[in-house]
């Protein structure tokens, strides 16, 4: 027993078990459980007010969960103050010490760990080199640009080789141009030093670019956690489907047929064959939501009826060079976006005309309930 438990812990950097946080009546966090693996880059993604900051602050130890358990490296963190957690953190506006030079800022976590000045400066300089700012050691934070300050903050969060590094909205204070560059850079740097990272953002693109796994939050609950690919291909809720990538959500009614299960709406139907394991979750007579990714839908001539097809009126046809984008109005007034690289066949279609849509059963996600 003991051995098995121990082995289990070896790959786990942090574990949240049923963590909740109440602010009066507001459930800022509602029964959140997940594991963080050593060396991974996990992003907590969700709209504003979904509990991302609260999770991060609970991990850092600035707030105590109302209930549930948080452990780091197998150690229960209940009642452990931030300074005893060995966690590095990059704050949203960096929180660099304005009266200390860059080198002193980075050396501060080493200073608190009782490391002597010479060693401290050596290691801080090494870290500064990694973030590419070795020439700025003697400057003060206010004498640096936003991007440079961010790198200093990152260096300060990494220099003492913490068990976990927390990044709070790392790109929020940067202008748009710099964001893309820093996303890649932070990813490279944290990989280079082998850090385990938990980042927070409300920007899905940032999450997709940087993360090994993404945890999607909504109203204080963890909706789904998985690799970007998993979340894109197998969203378990409409919310996740909508949040990750572009999605068309078609709502219809479930009907069992001789060949399997069909979900039908006005002017479209989607069918799963009997052997498909997804059929089990769908009950005849209930509602269901079909998730169609724009690039998985084919535009075909109207009247081509199959088991996985629909029909509507072309509302917009937009040429984007490598592909066409079509906006199709369905029978119930809902819109479906599709992207197609079959430029030749789309070119012949006109706005206002009827068009058929088709897809294959493997490319759709059906969410019951």
């Amino acid at each position, binding site marked *: 027993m003991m051995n098995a438990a121990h082995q289990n812990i070896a790959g786990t950097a942090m574990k949240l078990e049923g963590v909740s946080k109440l602010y009066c009546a507001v459930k800022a966090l509602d029964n959140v459980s997940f594991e963080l693996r050593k060396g991974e880059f996990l992003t907590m993604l969700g709209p504003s007010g979904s509990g991302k900051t609260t999770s991060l602050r609970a991990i850092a130890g600035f707030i105590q969960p109302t209930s549930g358990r948080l452990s780091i490296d197998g150690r229960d963190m209940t009642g452990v103050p931030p*300074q005893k957690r060995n*966690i*590095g953190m990059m*704050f949203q506006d960096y929180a660099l010490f304005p*009266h200390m030079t860059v080198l002193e800022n980075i050396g501060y976590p080493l200073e608190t760990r009782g490391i002597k000045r010479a060693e401290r400066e050596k290691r801080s300089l090494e870290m500064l080199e990694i973030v590419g700012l070795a020439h700025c050691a003697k400057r003060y934070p206010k004498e640096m640009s936003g991007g440079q300050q961010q790198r200093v903050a990152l260096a300060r969060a990494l220099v003492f080789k913490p068990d976990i590094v927390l990044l709070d909205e790392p790109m929020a204070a940067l202008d748009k141009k710099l964001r893309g560059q820093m996303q890649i850079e932070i990813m490279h740097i944290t990989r280079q030093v082998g850090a385990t990272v938990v980042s927070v953002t409300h920007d899905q693109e940032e999450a997709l670019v940087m993360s090994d796994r993404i945890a999607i939050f909504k109203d204080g609950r963890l909706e789904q956690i998985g690799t970007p690919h998993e979340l894109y291909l197998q969203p378990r809720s409409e919310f996740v489907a909508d949040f990750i990538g572009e999605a068309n959500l078609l709502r219809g009614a479930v009907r069992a047929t001789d060949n399997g299960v069909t979900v039908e709406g006005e002017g479209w139907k989607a069918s799963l064959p009997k052997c498909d394991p997804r059929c089990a979750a769908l009950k005849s007579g209930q509602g269901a939501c079909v998730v169609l990714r724009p690039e998985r839908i084919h535009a075909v001539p109207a009247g081509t009826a199959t088991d996985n097809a629909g029909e509507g009126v072309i509302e917009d046809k937009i040429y984007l060079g490598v592909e066409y984008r079509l906006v199709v109005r369905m029978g119930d007034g809902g819109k479906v976006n599709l992207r197609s690289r079959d430029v030749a066949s789309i070119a012949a279609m006109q706005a206002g005309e009827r068009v058929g849509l088709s897809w294959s059963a493997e490319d759709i996600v059906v969410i019951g309930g």
Partner: protein
Amino acid sequence: MTATTNDRSVPVKAGSSRGFRLPPAFWLIVPSVLFLALFFVFPLLKLVAISLPDGSLEYYHQIFTTPVFLRVIGETFRVSLIVTVVTVAIAYPYAYAMAHGGRAVLLVLTIALLIPFWVSLLLRSFSWVVLLQNSGLVNDFLIATGLIDRPLRLIRTPFGVIIGMVHILLPYAVLPLYTVMKKIDLRLMEASSICGASWLRGFARVYFPLSLPGVMASAILAFTLALGFYITPALLGSPRDMMIAQMIAGQFNEQLNFGLGAALAVVLMVLTAIAFGLFGAVRAALQMRGRRTGEA
């Protein structure tokens, strides 16, 4: 409309013809400048003149060769320094609570701080007499609880003077500290703790250095005000605790030695200026660094 254009064009013309133009705001400060010149600068120059009868330095010579004068000057600085240290030390946590304790705390502490301003200085010093005298509240309480059996000498001692002065100076010391502290971002203390620092280390390495400009401003104000205290040491101190302001008053009111009184006043002023200059130099050094670090 036309009136406005005229108003604007007239002074421009008049100014440019002389090649020098006073900013319009100049006229706003004329009354205060006149007032100060008439009732401050002129009497001050008069004072200096009185202290130098026929250009002779005899009064200054007398001051710097008479032990009693030197002792009073020394005592004034010593008491003021102690009072400054004690005042700032008490004001610091008070201002901290005001700056970071939330709105309710701020309200209560601000009111508590300002109430004494509605009570005259004289009355406040007298209340300390009532509290601290041999048959006063403090001694009565200590005797009643059996902690002591004979009244402590709290009044007519340097202790009494210091208590009274600290009490009066506290609001002056709190306000500059509060102004600086409320601008300090407490997330820096969170950053410090996640870097592995205890609260105490964070305070010493992060919060306190950032609050230093407030400490300096507060100390300058308390010290320069303390140097000129008159009523409080007179009521709460013994003749041995006399401060320079009392001595100046004595020369004018009792000895009727205007020349010596004037010379003492000038000495106090010059020494205050020197103290101010020293503080100022430290502050300038802090600001020099502040310019690079982005503090006030």
